[in-house]
């Protein structure tokens, strides 16, 4: 079972680096999804490890919350794009000065 957890850790790390490195807000969002998926894999693995379905339920709830989060997040990105004509995270810096 350890290798599943290791895979999950690797995917989580890649998602983390993606959030920090990428500039396009949509790709940043995809990396957040990757991190959520990685944690889901860990939850499902632990469910099997402990012979208990609670981990799968938790993964299911993570998916539901991720769906809601994606809907709102993409709507926000759309709104920003509409006013600023750019999906780059660097261009949304109105609060900076």
């Amino acid at each position, binding site marked *: 079972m350890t290798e*599943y957890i*290791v*895979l999950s850790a690797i*995917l989580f*790390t890649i998602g983390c680096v993606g959030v920090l*490195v990428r500039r396009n807000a949509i790709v940043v969002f995809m990396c957040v999804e990757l991190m959520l998926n990685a944690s889901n894999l860990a939850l*499902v693995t632990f469910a099997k490890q402990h*012979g208990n379905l609670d981990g799968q339920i938790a993964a*299911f709830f993570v998916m539901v919350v991720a769906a809601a989060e994606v809907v709102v997040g993409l709507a926000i990105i759309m709104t920003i794009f509409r006013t600023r004509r750019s999906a780059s995270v660097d261009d949304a810096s109105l609060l900076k000065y």
Partner: protein
Amino acid sequence: MISFWVLAPVMVLAALGILFVRKAVHAALLLAVVMISLAVQYAALDAPFLFAVQIIVYTGAILMLFLFVLMLVGVDASDSVVETIKGQRALATIGGLLLGVLLVVGVAQASLGTATGLDEANADGNVQGLANVLFSTWVLAFEVTSALLITAALGAMVLAHRERTTPKESQADLAAKRMRDYAERGAHLGPLPSPGVFARTNAVDTAALLPDGTAAEASVSRVLAARGTVRTAPAEDVERIERQIGDPSHRPEGAGKAGATGDTTETGPESGEEQA
């Protein structure tokens, strides 16, 4: 276990690809690879319900939503390579590597022991087992989820909605605007020329030829011009066609109408002779 070792490298490579590809669409497709592989991992981990949900919800709904938004935002909206914060990329990579090493070493140190396995919990079937837990222990969370989903749907509608602040332009307004542009700036009054009236092609991505042989740029869609996929009718093409028209052996049966190009490509004399 075979499915794990086959798919794990694919997943890691696809995830790494998300970090490096320039185009957002490619990142979305690589994420689809990761998610479908993850669904297979769920199936291997005795979670057939999550296998289906992963494919339907994540790959089917969420990724499609990503692709829709990418279409709205513009497929060519690729990432800029300019660093706004100096050294940020290097620091992020180092930090990520440290986090990865920490997590992997930490996990490798722990011994999980033999897995209990889900045979007992899944005795009545995975879906039934999940339903038993979901509608007893987690029923409150399940109900709250419905409130969350409604809030998210409403929020998305409010965010995506745009209030019209000016009245919609009617056809008469548009016509008046067109006339005003003509009076003030001398803008062309009529419709734009249609593309591809050059006799060789009637494709929309080929500019029409003006009487002097130059391409009419207004005749192709702005979108195609922005993508750079506009084909020009090159000079050598014109010469080749002139040669074909001039040489009767290359002339296909019933192609006499090709002489119509003579008007635009100065092959008037030759085509005139053939018709004569």
